[in-house]
């Protein structure tokens, strides 16, 4: 692939055993008038080329904030990153200058968002917006960039791309808009794509199409994909591994099949049990009792302890470390053995 990439970061090779992207002990706080909100408390995960990592968690678990910290699009202030590293090919992005980070964004790490309508600029045609990527970052002429835009729209399977390239975002359906966002995100062949709840705003049939599209694009280009979601059903088919977040921490890391077979954290277990299932029709749907933790006032010990059916005395006093279960699995629960056996 002949790409004109900037020289700020090492390109392929030369980063030893480093994964493509590694988040290491990341902390993010928001300094608000009400106090310090600890949104992310020591999150670590890694991603290799061609791999799909699903980051799972409910609202306020810190999954989106982690992604925004990777992209460097947090508003600082109020956000502060007191600790941690985000290594992309061995380089800590958090220590790069703003100019250097702008070079990384879009070209090497790109991101798509939940609501594709509001993520597109309403006053420009979609063709203009997609071709902007080529004009700005590749210095292409208007005509060449427009041609590339049509190609991209075909690549994300927008029917009649040639005719629709001059339409405005509001003239597209939700699924088509998300395709356009994806086209913009993959325009410059990024090595990592972060998708922040890409299908939440779409209806179910379209959700499946978008997930399939993402999986296909990833296969074609071998990029790493971080899929942020709260929907376990969405990730089952596409993800390689799952990181479950709760209260700003990762509570369980596992390959996707292991987690569905036997979760090792009570929160993951609760999530799995609360998926509606056809064979349990008529029975009451399980719900994790209680509410997500208040990030201003976290429970002592394990953040999940007020809601946990496995709670013992030490859960209230000791923060459980991330116990390694096997080479690829870990769980932040004192009683992971019981959880694993019990299911």
């Amino acid at each position, binding site marked *: 692939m002949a790409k004109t990439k900037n020289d700020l970061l090492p390109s392929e090779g030369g980063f030893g055993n480093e994964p493509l992207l590694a988040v290491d002990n990341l902390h993010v706080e928001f300094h608000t008038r009400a106090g310090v909100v600890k949104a992310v408390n020591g999150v670590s995960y890694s991603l290799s080329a061609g791999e799909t990592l699903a980051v799972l968690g409910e609202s306020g678990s810190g999954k989106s904030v982690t992604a925004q910290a990777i*992209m460097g*699009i947090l508003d600082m*202030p109020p956000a502060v990153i007191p600790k941690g590293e985000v290594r992309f090919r061995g380089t800590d992005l958090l220590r790069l200058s703003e*100019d250097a980070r*702008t*070079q*990384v*964004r*879009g*070209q090497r790490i*790109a*991101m*798509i*968002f939940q*609501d594709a309508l*509001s*993520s*597109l*600029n*309403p*006053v*420009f*045609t979609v063709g203009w917006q997609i071709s*902007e*990527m080529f004009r*700005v*970052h590749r210095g292409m002429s208007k005509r060449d960039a427009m041609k590339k835009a049509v190609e991209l729209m075909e690549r994300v399977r927008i029917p009649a791309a040639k005719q629709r390239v*001059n*339409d*405005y975002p509001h*003239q597209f359906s939700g699924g088509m808009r998300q395709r356009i*966002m994806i086209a*913009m*995100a993959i325009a*410059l062949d990024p090595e990592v794509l972060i998708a922040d709840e890409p299908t939440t705003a779409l209806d179910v049939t379209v959700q499946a199409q978008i997930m399939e599209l993402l999986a296909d694009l990833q296969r074609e280009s071998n990029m790493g994909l971080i899929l942020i979601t709260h929907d376990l059903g969405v990730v089952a088919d596409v993800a390689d591994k799952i990181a479950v977040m709760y209260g700003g921490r990762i509570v369980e890391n596992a390959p996707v099949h292991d987690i569905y077979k036997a979760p090792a954290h009570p929160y993951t277990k609760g999530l799995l049990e609360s998926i509606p299932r056809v064979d349990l029709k008529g029975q009451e749907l399980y719900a994790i009792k209680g509410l997500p933790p208040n990030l201003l006032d976290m429970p002592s010990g394990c953040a999940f302890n007020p809601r946990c059916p496995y709670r013992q005395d030490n859960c209230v006093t000791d923060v459980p470390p991330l116990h390694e279960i096997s080479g690829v699995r870990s769980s932040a629960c004192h009683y992971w053995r019981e959880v694993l056996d019990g299911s």
Partner: protein
Amino acid sequence: MSSSVASPPQSGGRHQKKQNDKPASLWSDAWYDLRRKPAFVISAILIGVLLLMAIWPTLFSSVDPRACDLSVARQAPSAGHLFGRDNLGCDVYSRTIHAARNSIVIGVLTTVLVAVIGGLLGMVAAFYASMTDTVLSRLTEIFFAIPGILGALLIASTFRDQINSILLVIVSLTVLSWPMTFRIMRAAVITAKNQDFVVAARALGAGPSRLMFRHLLPNALAPVIVVSTINLGVFIAAEAALSFLGVGVQSPDISWGLMISDARDRFLDAPLPLIFPAVFLSITVLAFIMLGDAVRDALDPKLR
């Protein structure tokens, strides 16, 4: 009028048209609305005539506005001199026509300067927020505290010997008027800034200048355009006020305010030299304010 005939083709017709046409953007939609507004059409025609007057005054009058003859001062209207003659025996009609240029030049240039200065600073303040915003906003408030025409009077009378009088009017009006545009632009950019597409553009590698000029400006421009169109009329009136007070346009330049001021002394003997420029001034100001209103309705249907 019977409504039974018109209703179905009307709605269908418009819809059809939109589908065949190029896709409707905010601006093409606004243009579609505008063309159908009598207020817009009338003000546009008036402004067209005024612009013509400003560019080629000789199209309307072949009489030299500076050829004055004291012996025929305050002569009543006649065939050759439609509006009669003023205190100095100059042709009122010709002077009224020739004054349009200064009034419109002052109005347009002040509006452009105010929109550019206020708009840019407002955008920068909203975009960078924190310190930049605080400093710029406090600066704006200082200017806001100066009472309008009094401040312009002060500036214009202080520098009247150093600068060309028309330029001076433009500068003094601009200095006192940019804060309003600043505030409008700042508010509009703050609203636009929090929208997802700006975050998305950042996530795809857009730098600050691209974010400001490509993503924020087009989405925050509408209110500034509206206020600017209305302001244009206001500035023309302000120029007349300054000239009337003797610190605006200076003779031998011609302006409506100056003509009104000159004719004021003998108004009871000869009212026409005051009435004609005053009517032209009113029509011009009205035309621009009407245009601004129509543009506002078209660009911001919520205000209707």
